[in-house]
Each structure stands twice: as C-alpha cells, then as structure tokens.
C-alpha cells in the first residue's frame, strides 16, 4: 500500500503554484467568450502556453488535437515532478479504458480502428491495438482483463454493442475507486467517494430521463461512495425533484442543493455543471489551505481537466455560433 509522505510534494507544489498563474483565469475566459470569431478565441490559448508552435495546430479546426496534446503534456509534467508515479497512473488509466472501448467497438463491428485513440494513457496506443486484436491481455490490469472477457461473453449472447460502454465504464470506475482507496491518504480516499457519488447522481439523472427500469439502474450504479444506494432505488419512479430533495439529507446536501435552487434553467446539463463545480469547490478548499502536499498536486490535474472542458465548450459554441449566455451557462468553475 502506497503511503503518501506529504512533504515529498514540496518541489511539485512550488512548481505548480507558479504554473497556476498560466491557467485560464476568469479574465482570459471572458476574453475568449467576447471574441467575435472562433479564431480569435483560439488565440487566447497561446497566452496560457498551449503549444501552438506546431504547424498542424495553427487553425481553430484543430482544437481537439491541441487539447489532447495539452492533456498529454500535463500528465508528462506531473509524472516528472511528482514523487509517486502510481498516484498519477491511477488517473492515466482512465484513458486506457477509453482506448479499449474504441478498440472493442471496432473489433466487434469488424471495422477499422478510428483515428481517435488517445496517447495519454498508461499503455502505448499501438501496443493496445495489438493486445485487443491478438486477445493477449496478460499485460493489462486484472479488472480490465475480466471486463474485456465479460464484454465478449455478453456481446456473443445479446449482440448489443451498448454493453461495451456499460461494462467498461463500470470497470473503469471500480478500478479507479479501488486504487484511490488503496493509497494511504485521507484526501485521496475522500476523493474516491466523492467521485463515485457524483458519477452515480449524474448517471441516475440521465437514466431517469430515459425511463430506465429499476433492474437496469441497479446494474449500472457504482459501488462505494457515501450515499446509500436505497436512495436511488426509492426514487426510480418518483419525480426528479423528490430525488434532488432526498440528496439534501446526504453529505453533499447543503452545498449542492443551494446551487440547484439558484438555477433558473434546470436541465441535465446545468445539473451536471453543479455537480462538477461541487467537486472543484472541494478540491480548491482542500488545496488552498495547505502549503505542501498531494492536494495541490491533484487539484492541478483537475484544474487542467476542467480548463480543457471549458475550452472545448467555448470553442464548440463559437464555431457553431451559440450565444455567449448559452455558452456561459455551461462553463465549469475555474480553479484560480
């Protein structure tokens, strides 16, 4: 079991505090929003040191490639400056799951591998292609291995390609939860519960909107977290407001409920934003009251992920000519 020595993060914390200045703050986000053209908004990113030197990333239409590159750079930085690679790898493995999902979908529908594989994960992209094609899973984690086997098993019986997402997402969060809980550090353990709960609430809201039956919801909800699963099961038939009212009596109640009440326009997107913001608030709170430790380290990763999410929302909105108010409504809370 990895035990985190907070003081060993002294160098990393110092570096990241200085680096936080370059994150997109409110000011830069406002400038991106006020830009009349998508290109203009895109150029603001160069101030935040997004690497646009590369000729192939000059145009706004390449923004997805730029964001992928930025995420990869962030992980490389954290691996370089952090004292425990295992801590970063827990988060990196999420990208492996994404790649495996893409590969399995291609494999099961006998199509070529689409060019959307990410290079951010722990496993090499091309190696992963070979592993899935040759069904040689030995290098993969145990949880991922059994998930892949399960996908083949269920798919051969039902022929339903939705099972790929269902099974692998569940395995992903299970592994994420187990590994975060496996690190001997209070913050990482709390984070595991918050992420599971927030993911469960989001999934439940979406599944309710699709009128999925109780058995299905029971199958997909993640294990762990602080919210009792009965709370979800009891609300399958009830209106969404009654579910949100029940949430008020849980650990998260007060914080989430207040921002939900202040929403003028309550829909799935804005509710998800409230939940994401809650996670970011927790991060900020934990990271800012501490000088040296793992909290500011992980908070930087989340800040960067939220930032990339925001950039994607703004640029997609600008390219499609959405109004600023509509874009702003969906923007996530920024860390700085």
């Amino acid at each position, binding site marked *: 079991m990895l035990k985190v020595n907070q003081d060993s993060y002294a160098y990393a914390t110092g570096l*990241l*505090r*200085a680096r936080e200045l370059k994150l997109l703050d409110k000011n830069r986000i406002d400038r991106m929003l006020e830009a009349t053209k998508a290109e203009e908004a895109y150029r603001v990113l160069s101030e935040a040191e997004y690497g646009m030197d590369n000729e192939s990333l000059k145009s706004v239409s390449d923004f997805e490639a730029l964001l992928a590159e930025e995420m990869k750079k962030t992980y490389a930085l954290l691996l370089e*400056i952090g004292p425990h690679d295992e801590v970063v790898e827990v988060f990196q493995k999420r990208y492996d799951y994404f790649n495996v999902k893409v590969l399995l979908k291609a494999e099961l529908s006998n199509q070529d591998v689409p060019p959307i594989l990410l290079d951010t994960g722990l496993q090499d992209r091309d190696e992963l292609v070979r592993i899935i094609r040759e069904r040689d899973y030995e290098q993969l984690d145990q949880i991922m291995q059994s998930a892949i086997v399960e996908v083949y098993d269920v798919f051969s019986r039902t022929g339903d390609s939705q099972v790929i997402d269902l099974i692998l997402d569940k395995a992903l969060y299970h592994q994420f939860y187990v590994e975060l809980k496996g690190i001997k550090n209070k913050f990482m353990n709390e984070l595991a519960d918050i992420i599971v709960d927030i993911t469960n609430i989001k999934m439940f809201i979406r599944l309710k909107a699709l009128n999925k039956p109780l058995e299905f919801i029971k199958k997909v909800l993640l294990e762990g977290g602080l919210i009792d699963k009965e709370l979800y099961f009891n609300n399958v038939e009830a209106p969404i407001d009654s579910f949100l009212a029940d949430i008020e009596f849980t650990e998260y109640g007060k914080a989430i409920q207040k921002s939900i009440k202040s929403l003028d326009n309550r829909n799935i997107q804005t509710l998800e934003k409230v939940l994401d913001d809650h996670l970011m608030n927790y991060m900020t709170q934990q990271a800012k009251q501490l*000088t040296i430790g793992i909290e500011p380290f992980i908070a930087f990763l989340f800040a960067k992920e939220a930032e990339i999410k925001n950039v994607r929302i703004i640029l997609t909105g600008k390219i499609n000519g959405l109004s600023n108010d509509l874009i702003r409504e969906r923007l996530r809370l920024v860390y700085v």
Partner: protein
Amino acid sequence: MWENIFTGQLLAIFGAIIAFLVSGLGSSKGVALAGQTGAGVLTEDPSKFGSVIILQALPSTQAIYGFVIAFLIIGKINGAMAFEEGFRLFLAGLPVGIIGFISAIYQGRVAASGIQLISKRPEAIGSAITLALMVEMFAILSLIISILIIG
C-alpha cells in the same frame, strides 16, 4: 551512584549536544522544505531567485542559536565541575534545542508558503518575510532563556 556515571562534566556536554543537535535537525528540515518548494518555483520562473533565497534562509537561524548556546556551555565546562553545575548546563540546552527544533520546521512551512505567495505576487516579498519572522520570535525567546540559565 548517579554522580559516578553522570559527572557534572558529562551532563554539561549532553546539554551542549542537545542545544545544537536538536535545533540543527529542525533547521535542516525547515530549510529543506523551503528549498524544495523554492526549486519548484524557480523551475517555472528563475527570476525569483533573490526572494526565494531570503525566505529559504530564515529557518537556519535556529541552528545558529543552538550553536551559540552549545558554544557558551562548552566554555563553562571544566574537569572539577559539581554535579549540580553540570545539571544546570544540561537544562540550559533544552529550551533552545526543543523550541528551536519545532519553530524551525514550522518556520520552514511558513517560508514555503511565502515562496508560493511570491511566485504569484512578487511584490508581496515583505509580507512573506514578516510572516516567517513571526515564528522566529519563539526561537529568540528560547535563546534568551537558555542564556539566562547558563548565567
């Protein structure tokens, strides 16, 4: 029987060792914490070197105070020392050693926070130093008490 093992001379030497050893350990830890944080900031922005070095040096004073007390104690040692006299010098080493140890580590943390502060707002160097100096006061008080006990 005690007097045979712990002579006044030996006790006084213990006092000198505690005064320097314990405060020195604290200063090493404090300066190291501030230094590592400083190195992180300098990786991003080398122009902050001047401010970083001042803040990093602050937790080293505790070891200097420990050194002073150890020096004074050693100066008082002689072969024919009474047990009581040696025991008094032993006790004199404790304040500067123990308070120095703890205040150096905490001062190191305040200095590391200060370094993070100036990485974002370079003009706040004055405030960063003042905050770290607040911790220095307790080390100074312990130095005075140790000097008074030596007499």
